[in-house]
């Protein structure tokens, strides 16, 4: 266990170093001068002033030097200041991160809550009408892009039924009710694709598991179908699902970027989007590193979940 944690931490550090360097280089070779983000357009004609700003921000130093400086500060918890607002990047991140995390957590939790029973049931009823219905719906859910789902949900539940707000965000400090209301539609938009993927994955594993001999022997003991399905069939069918959920949380970051934009949610994704547009490369750099760390954490968590699901892995570790 200790060995595993040390190994994971080493991997995290290496990954962060590589990704942050690549991002740094990437942002720098992009066309467009970061100075443009720093000063108003009319001042950009003043060569001397521009040069002064460049010196001030250290933009004239070689890239490697600048990266080293950034890294040195980052290690001490200082991710620099936004080129656009001049505010410390860390402040803005701590303000926006919880929103994105909540959105993703609710989306994943919601999709598992629906997909696990649905996939298990669908696999159990393989080939029957109910299974075909579920599979058809899953196919439809898969082919819907996130923003289309979002727009449909906004139209139906916000504009027509007026159950939920169409855009905006209420923080948890504004009360649980308003907070849940504002997270519902964006999280559901993200969840539709996830539900479809998870249901299909679990269904096909379930079908394979139900053909196993131990399922037959469990049934021959006179156990009820539901008991056999959930106590004997589910656990061995979960491994692929766990892998896919782990991988998909990575993709969700991309999805939440679109959704935050669509629902005007002040999350990290939306900020990353504007930061890229404005060449606010301090912000881009910081958010990218954060996503990397998050990704590695999710991967480690996935491995821990394997152990929870499969007692055989637990025993050998």
């Amino acid at each position, binding site marked *: 266990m200790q060995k595993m944690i040390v190994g994971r931490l080493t991997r995290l550090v290496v990954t962060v170093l590589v990704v942050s360097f690549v991002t740094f280089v990437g942002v720098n070779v992009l066309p467009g001068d970061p100075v443009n983000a720093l000063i108003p357009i009319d001042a950009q004609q003043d060569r001397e002033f521009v040069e002064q700003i460049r010196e001030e921000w250290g933009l004239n130093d070689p890239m490697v030097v600048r990266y080293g400086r950034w890294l040195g500060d980052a290690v001490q918890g200082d991710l620099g200041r936004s080129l656009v607002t001049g505010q410390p990047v860390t402040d803005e991140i701590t303000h926006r991160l919880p929103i994105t995390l909540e959105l993703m957590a609710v989306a994943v939790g919601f999709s598992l809550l629906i997909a696990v029973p649905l996939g298990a049931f669908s696999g159990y009823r393989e080939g029957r009408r109910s299974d075909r219905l579920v599979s058809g719906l899953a196919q439809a859910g898969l082919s819907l892009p996130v923003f289309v789902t979002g727009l449909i949900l906004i139209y139906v539940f916000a504009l027509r039924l007026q159950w939920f707000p169409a855009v905006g965000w209420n923080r948890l400090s504004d009360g649980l009710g308003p907070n849940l209301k504002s997270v519902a539609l964006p999280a559901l938009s993200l969840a539709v694709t996830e539900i479809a993927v998870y249901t299909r994955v679990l269904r096909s594993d379930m079908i394979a598991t139900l053909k196993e001999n131990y399922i037959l022997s*469990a049934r*021959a*003991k*006179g156990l009820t179908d539901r008991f056999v399905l959930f106590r004997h069939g589910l656990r061995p069918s979960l491994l692929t699902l766990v892998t896919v959920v782990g991988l998909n949380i990575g993709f969700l970051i991309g999805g939440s970027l679109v959704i935050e934009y669509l629902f005007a949610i002040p999350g990290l994704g939306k900020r990353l989007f504007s930061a890229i547009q404005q060449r606010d490369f301090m912000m881009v750099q910081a958010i990218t590193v954060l996503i990397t760390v998050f990704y590695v954490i999710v991967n480690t968590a996935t491995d821990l979940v394997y152990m929870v699901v499969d007692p*055989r892995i637990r025993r050998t570790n």
Partner: protein
Amino acid sequence: MAISQEPVDTSTPSESMEGSEILRVEDLHTSFFLPIGELQAVRGVSFTLKRGQSLGIVGESGSGKTVLARSIMGLTLAKHVEISGKAFFNGRDLLTLSRREMRSLWGTEIAMIFQDPMTSLNPMVKIGRQVIEHLRQHKNVDRREAKQIALDLLNEVRIPEAESRIDRLPHELSGGMRQRVSIASALACEPSLLFADEPTTALDVTVQHQILNLLSREQRQRNMTMVLVTHDLGVIAGRTDETLVMYAGKVVEQAPTAEIFDNTQHPYTEALMRSIPRTSQPSHTPLAAITGRPPVATHLPKGCAFSPRCPYVQPRCHEEDPSLVSIGTSEHKAACWYPVGSDANREAFERNLSDRLPQTLAVAEALDADQGSETSADVPDGELT
């Protein structure tokens, strides 16, 4: 002091017991409807079993023995299956019961042990729970009581250090131990009828014997009725009261087990006997295999299904399918026009030999080899391993 080791081959106690009928199967047919046609897996099997009796069902792979057991038990085999006939268990026809009614019998009244203990136990569930989970569901036993019962059962099937093994996972046990767990699980609700479907086929030879002895002992002690399905005549020798020999979905010979060995009637039974390796043979004696393959059940030959492989085959065998009739005693039945040991059979053999029929030549060769070994090793024949 409990007697821990009693001899296995004591005389059958079933006759001294009440001997009431527990299972009566009448003209059971099972067919699968496949894209390539109707596959007749079981074609009209009938037999009766008394309480405490044991029955061995013997046949090659594909002879329909497993399908027969599962049809009686009502365990779904596949889609597009049709079962007809009757199977009375304590007077109730199992084939007419609903799934819910069957489920209340499964595990509690009728239990089954499967072939491969590597796959018939859930790899992710502790063995203790697999032994008693149905007991808890059927009989509302509380957790602590159930654990004690599981411990007792594991001890009874001779799993050493049961206390520490109860929380193990199947992969942490050997094959023989796993099959002991399966047996413990089958016995948990004290069923009156036990199907053991090739219970030792997947095990090491050294373990097979122990598992069979364990099954026989439990069967006798509990006065349980047991159906032992196997491809190996050696497995049932001295263990079961009755024997059914199946070929291509039909019973070809049926008799008390000792009678089957002493007075073999059907050429297929004889061929199965010949394929049992014997210790009296010198090492490296080739096994006497049965020439040819079992027929494909979608395209059964006309007449007797064994005729294409039979060393005694005559023109009549290709035309008419012999029915199962009593031979000698009423207890001994066989389905053959030229039963082994009869004059007609000897004549048929000579005729086929002179016609140089391949399967007849193969048998003659095996007989010669056997004769040779007997004179050199000077061991009496007929001894089964």
